[in-house]
């Protein structure tokens, strides 16, 4: 019983508490408070209040507004300067308004009950809501060619209440527009000018436009202005006009395309007309006179490395690190050998036949493997290092007629006039020389480093052999023929087992008269080996074989490649034609200092040459 009573009383208490709380929370009367304070022009402001739900307030006049300006510590509460009880509004005029100073407002009822909320404090600049602009009007800017859309310029005046002229207020405007029957407004970006363009309105539709303002740098917007209505009726364009414009545009486009095509197709011609080609530079060492005379072979010779401005330099650099690439040197005697026969007069012949040559024709290289065909007369004391030159070695792909090389002396020149290169089998495993030109085109490079030559201009050699043989003995005397460079083919065996055997360059004694300082290149006349001992005294002539070929025949055997015979004092490369001299038998070999590669001179060789 007591427990029940206790429980009942507890329950009652709890429910009453709940109800009381409920009442307090939900049904509690709202005290008088301020609804809003607003300023329109940053000079005055007004505040509105509401009495709340207190019932003991008989009349609105009972509530009084007091404000406090917190600009000094000793400020006190003052009453509202101007009441408007009808609106429950308190108006602060310019004399009572101070900007940038916090105001606090409170309501006081009877018996000095104050209703004060901290949130009712503010600074006037923060409660500014400017008036909307006035005198809105619009003008048509432009209609699209199709007549379907148009642009409109809307202009207005700033609100009269806002003092924009003195700069006291800086106002921004926001335009909003919508179609007559739409529900949502489209807003444009806020901007400070008193006009703005609305783009892309559709013809035939009526639009509603209104504007509102706010202070720059503050967030609160004012009210919207009255709406204006914008409408543009559709203007049906004449179809002919549309068609005409279409035709014109397409026609112009087509013409442009045609022009472009023409330009593109005749690009080359136009380029020639507009930008004529710059004349090619003169190649150093080439005499234009030669060109006029039509000495194409000589040109080939020069271009392929006869002069210093030729190609060889880069090739020598390129092959500098390639130990397998060696320069093939053609001996003077080889030239002599070649003089007899057409094939032998060519550099390729010598190139090919070097390891196979008989005593008289080629100087053996340092490879002991290439002993075959080497006569005892030939020195084998030539250092291998000297003889190994880095260059693209021209390896004949076709073996040469061994017999022809082995016994050049024995064969009559006439018998050697082979019209076609004799191909020797490579049974010996040695590179053989075919009866091709001294210069042949490299058709392939073997992995082992050898180079496969394609037959050169054998025909040319054939032509010139007869003449060469005739002029054999006149080389040393004919100084006029110094103009033409003579060269010899130097074939280098890459590794001894390659296709070509190294041919040590023969020291060639060049007659002093053969040197023509004025030329970019010098011709070295091939001479009999007897004069060789004298040659070494001249440093720039010692290691080279001078083919003894007539000047006119200098370029005959040279097809595409030339051999740098040596360097002269002017650091120009002397190219030797394959000589037609008969190989002198058992001529003392001059120790080869630095064999010159075919058309290329490596830096170390250069040093050797010049030294």
């Amino acid at each position, binding site marked *: 019983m007591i427990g029940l009573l206790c429980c009942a009383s507890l329950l009652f208490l709890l429910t009453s508490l709940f109800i009381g709380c409920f009442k307090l929370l939900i049904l509690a009367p709202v005290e008088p408070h301020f609804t809003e304070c607003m300023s329109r022009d940053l000079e005055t402001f007004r505040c509105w209040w509401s009495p709340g739900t207190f019932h003991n307030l008989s009349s609105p006049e009972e509530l009084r507004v007091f404000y406090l300006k917190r600009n000094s510590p000793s400020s006190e509460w003052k009453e509202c300067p101007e009441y408007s009880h009808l609106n429950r509004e308190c108006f602060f005029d*310019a004399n009572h308004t101070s900007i*940038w*100073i*916090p105001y606090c407002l409170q309501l006081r009822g009877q018996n000095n009950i104050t209703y004060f909320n901290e949130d009712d404090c503010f*600074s006037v600049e923060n409660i500014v809501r400017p008036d909307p602009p006035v005198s809105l009007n619009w003008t048509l800017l432009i209609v699209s060619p199709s007549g379907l859309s148009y642009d409109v310029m809307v202009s207005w005046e700033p609100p009269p209440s806002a003092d924009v*002229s003195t700069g*006291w207020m800086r106002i921004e405007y926001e335009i909003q527009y919508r179609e007559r029957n739409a529900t949502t407004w489209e807003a444009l970006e806020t901007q400070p000018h008193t006009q703005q363009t609305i783009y892309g309105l559709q013809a035939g539709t009526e639009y509603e436009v209104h504007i509102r303002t706010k202070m720059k*740098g503050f967030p609160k917007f004012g009210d919207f202005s009255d709406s204006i209505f914008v409408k543009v009726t559709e203007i049906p364009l004449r179809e002919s006009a549309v068609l005409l414009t279409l035709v014109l545009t397409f026609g112009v486009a087509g013409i442009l395309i045609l022009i472009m095509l023409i330009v593109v197709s005749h690009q080359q011609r136009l380029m020639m007309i507009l930008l004529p080609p710059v004349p090619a530079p003169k190649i150093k060492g080439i005499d234009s006179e030669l060109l006029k005379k039509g000495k194409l072979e000589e040109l080939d010779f020069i271009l392929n490395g006869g002069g210093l401005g030729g190609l060889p330099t880069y090739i020598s650099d390129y092959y500098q690190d390639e130990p397998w690439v060696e320069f093939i040197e053609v001996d003077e005697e080889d030239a002599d050998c070649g003089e007899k026969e057409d094939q032998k007069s060519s550099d390729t012949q010598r190139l090919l036949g070097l390891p196979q040559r008989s005593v008289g024709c080629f100087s053996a290289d340092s490879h002991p493997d290439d002993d075959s065909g080497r006569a005892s007369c030939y020195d084998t004391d030539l250092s291998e290092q000297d003889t190994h030159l880095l260059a693209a070695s021209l390896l004949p792909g076709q073996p040469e007629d061994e017999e022809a090389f082995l016994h050049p002396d024995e064969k009559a020149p006439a018998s050697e006039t082979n019209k076609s290169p004799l191909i020797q089998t490579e049974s010996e495993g040695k590179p053989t020389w075919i009866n091709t030109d001294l210069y042949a085109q490299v058709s392939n490079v073997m992995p082992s480093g050898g180079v496969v030559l394609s037959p050169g201009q054998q025909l040319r050699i054939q032509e010139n052999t007869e003449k060469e043989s005739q002029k054999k003995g006149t080389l040393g005397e004919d100084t006029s023929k110094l103009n033409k460079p003579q060269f010899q083919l130097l074939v280098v065996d890459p590794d001894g087992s390659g296709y070509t055997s190294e041919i040590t360059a023969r020291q060639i004694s060049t007659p002093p008269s053969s040197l023509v300082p004025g030329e970019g290149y010098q011709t070295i006349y091939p001479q009999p080996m007897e004069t060789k001992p004298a040659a070494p005294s001249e440093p720039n002539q010692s290691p080279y074989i001078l083919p003894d070929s007539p000047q006119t025949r200098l370029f005959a055997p040279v097809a595409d490649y030339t051999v740098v015979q040596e360097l002269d004092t002017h650091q120009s490369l002397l190219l030797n034609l394959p000589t037609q001299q008969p190989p002198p038998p058992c001529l003392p070999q001059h120790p080869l200092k630095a064999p010159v590669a075919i058309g290329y001179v490596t830096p170390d060789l250069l040093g050797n040459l010049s030294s």
Partner: protein
Amino acid sequence: LKREIKKIISAVWVGIICLVFSSRLSTMKAASICPNDQTGCHLLPLANLFDRVIQHSARMHGISDDLHSEFELYFLPSKNQIGRVSRNCHTSTILTPNGKENAQRIAREELAEIILKLLVAWRDPLWHFHQSMSQHDEFTNFSSNKSLEMSDMVHELRKGVLKVVEKMQMLGIISNSVGDTGSPEALLTSDSAEWRFMKDYDLLYCFRRDSNKIQNYLKILKCRIVPKHGC
């Protein structure tokens, strides 16, 4: 060879275009200063100076507003952007006109001086504010950059206003009494400690208010001195 030619042609084109533009620019420059109106011509550069300075102050106020709003996220947002009434800014000691009429009534020299005083007073507090902001991790880089920008702008604006004052003195519009009151030591001796005790949020609120003051004063000053040029 073709490539070289093309390079040359492109270089020539570039040169021609540059010449055209430079000639245009030079003609534009020559035409902009002092059109027909000769009497008011000497005031045009001053109006330009004023415009620039006013733009600068507007931007400064914008940044302070942004930062203040960001700070409000950490506090309960107040209805009218005033959370506390106990706020007292360190620049309260500087007497400033509180209304439009007051601002229009006081002497131009005084107004210029007030502007300069305000700018000087905020130099150090903003710098320290930026320092403290960069140390707190909860503030984003964005806010930190803004605080730095604000600090720099006060600097720049002060220089700009000094230039305007100089120009005005040169033109004889105001007397030479407006000196460089920017000796911060003089100002800070009185309230050197005050701003240090202000919290960041209060500091931002105060600066926002003061930047608005500066903006308004500059505008009023401009429209008093050069009223014809865009007021």
